[in-house]
């Protein structure tokens, strides 16, 4: 402990230099932890969007459903999808099962027909678990969208919710009558007249131009799909157990493919990789700055204390104990810097969140979002450990320099 005490006193000896070094550590901590909080917001937003956008926590689908173009037809579907959904609802880990049918076809207003990608959902369950309201609210603000509402729960109702671009292409608005055309499971052409219940703005132009939603009853009539369902979106009671439940349910459901949402949300994975690359590079630069700053401070400190080190060595201090002394100095710099950095992060985070800063719309999205820096203890710990490790490494060179001093020369040093 005497070395630790000596190290602390040495740092206090050059207060201004120590303060400057601490500021570099604090700045590094602040930048990385705020970036981490921002990343957490982005990842959570994207994962929520993926899960509540229709994927659920798990998806049960036929094997090979993701290969080729068959995903949009009933040729590759769960033939007893509804029965399977009923069975899954009995599982204690499952909160709800939302069957979905994906299909494609043409949507016509008479003189004009436009190709669409459709999803059929349970009109009663879907709003309880999926994010339907926001897209409808945004759609209601567009031309022809006034009065937008969700699909009726009446099994006899034949309604559709259109993407805003699709509605624009067909000059359709809420209340318009259109005709859905597609092929049944057997390959016959079929058509169903539907009324536009609402317009939805899904945030991505490409989706708005092609996407529509109908009830499973409407799709069953159009596709003659009976019990068949393209996929089952499974909502879990404990989302944190997604990976574990995926493995368990896969074992329980042979002949199906059970996939977790994060394997299916390719956008989420791409953004995550991109963020990791950007912030990883930023982190590398910051760690390098901290490494150089602390190495410089400790090296200057060693150069000023050459004679003192000579005296300590003459008194019997082992070379490795000088290394330990410098490591203690680094340890105090790192610990104090991270503690102050954490304090600064919490204060700045609170301030930034209170400002309700509006961020611009991300690429491909049609609306912005409010900045919210998340509180992420795991990231703070990781940053603190990373900085500590960096500083300990930076203390190695000055420590080795001190340990290699020849005592007689050190004692002569002026």
């Amino acid at each position, binding site marked *: 402990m005497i070395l630790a005490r000596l190290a602390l006193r040495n740092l*206090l000896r050059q207060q201004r230099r120590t303060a400057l070094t601490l500021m570099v550590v604090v700045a590094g901590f602040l930048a990385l932890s705020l970036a981490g909080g921002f990343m957490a917001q982005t990842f959570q937003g994207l994962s929520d969007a993926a899960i509540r956008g229709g994927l659920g926590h798990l998806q049960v689908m036929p094997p090979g459903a993701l290969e080729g173009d068959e995903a949009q037809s009933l040729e590759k579907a769960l033939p007893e999808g509804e029965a399977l959904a009923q069975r899954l609802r009995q599982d204690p880990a499952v909160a709800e099962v939302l069957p979905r049918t994906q299909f494609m076809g043409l949507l016509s207003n008479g003189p004009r027909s436009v190709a669409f990608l459709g999803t059929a959902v349970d009109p009663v369950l879907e709003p309880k678990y999926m994010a339907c309201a926001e897209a409808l609210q945004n759609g209601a603000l567009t031309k022809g969208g006034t009065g937008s509402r969700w699909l009726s729960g009446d099994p006899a109702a034949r309604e559709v919710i259109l993407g805003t671009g699709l509605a624009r292409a067909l000059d359709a608005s809420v209340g318009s009558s259109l005709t859905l055309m597609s092929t049944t499971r057997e390959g016959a052409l079929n058509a169903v007249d539907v009324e536009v219940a609402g317009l939805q703005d899904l945030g991505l132009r490409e989706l708005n131009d092609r996407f529509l939603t109908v009830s499973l009853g409407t799709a069953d009539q159009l596709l003659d799909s009976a019990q068949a369902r393209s996929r089952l979106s499974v909502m879990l009671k404990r989302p944190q157990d997604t990976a574990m439940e995926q493995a368990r349910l896969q074992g329980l459901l042979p002949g199906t493919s059970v996939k977790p949402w994060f394997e299916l949300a390719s956008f989420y994975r791409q953004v995550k990789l991109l963020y990791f690359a950007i912030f990883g590079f930023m982190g590398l630069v910051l760690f390098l700055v901290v490494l150089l700053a602390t190495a410089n401070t400790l090296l200057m400190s060693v150069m000023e204390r050459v004679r*003192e080190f000579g005296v300590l*060595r*003459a008194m019997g201090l082992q070379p490795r104990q000088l290394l330990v002394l410098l490591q203690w100095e680094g340890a105090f710099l790192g610990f104090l810097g991270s503690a102050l950095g954490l304090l600064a992060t919490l204060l700045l985070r609170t301030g930034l969140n209170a400002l309700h800063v509006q961020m611009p719309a991300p690429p491909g999205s049609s609306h912005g979002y409010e900045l919210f820096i998340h509180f992420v203890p795991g990231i703070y710990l990781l940053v603190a450990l990373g900085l500590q490790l960096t500083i300990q490494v930076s203390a190695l060179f000055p420590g080795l320099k001190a340990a290699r001093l020849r005592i007689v020369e050190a*004692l002569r040093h002026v």
Partner: protein
Amino acid sequence: MLEFRAITRAYELGGERAGVFGVSLTVPKGRLAVLAGPSGSGKTTLLQLAGLLDTPDEGEVRLAGELVSSLPEKARCDLRLRRLGFVFQAFNLVPVLSALENVMLPLQLQGRTEAEARERAEAALARVGLADRRHHHPGQLSGGQQQRTAIARALAPEPLLVLADEPTASLDHAHGGPLLDLMAELAQERGATFLVASHDPSVIARAHTVFRLLDGKLVEVG
């Protein structure tokens, strides 16, 4: 106590060969011995060899009968820590530590508990007359007080041999004399051996044994 056998340690200084050459001498236990001679005579070199801070090119250094000059560095560190004490011309106290903490430092490095180190350090400071200054830092002490602190630091671990390099060179006569008297007293009182390098006549006058060096060779023992 301390024995040099045909010691040679040569080095280049300003293009000329300097050091000590074939020196043999024995410092008896419990004595205040002085290495005397002009600058460049080899006093400090011998002191560094005695303190295991340097290694001879030829010859042997023995401490309490044990050959110590060829020991590995770790063993030399251990010997310096447990059996040797140092007093330097420029005092060389650790500036960030108080007088008490400076004296405690070698004791704590030996692995003694803080309480034991404090007790011994306080006693050592009291013995050199600095009990009331123990919480002062080196910058708050006069030169004489700093050197007395250094003596307390050297003596507190109860070494066999205390090595002092020009201990009065940074002090005026009024402070240097009493300091030497103190060292002589401590040598008698504790049975510790003092080997002092100095060309100060007042130091030489107080020595029990004087080894005179000239150009790196022992020329007289008195």
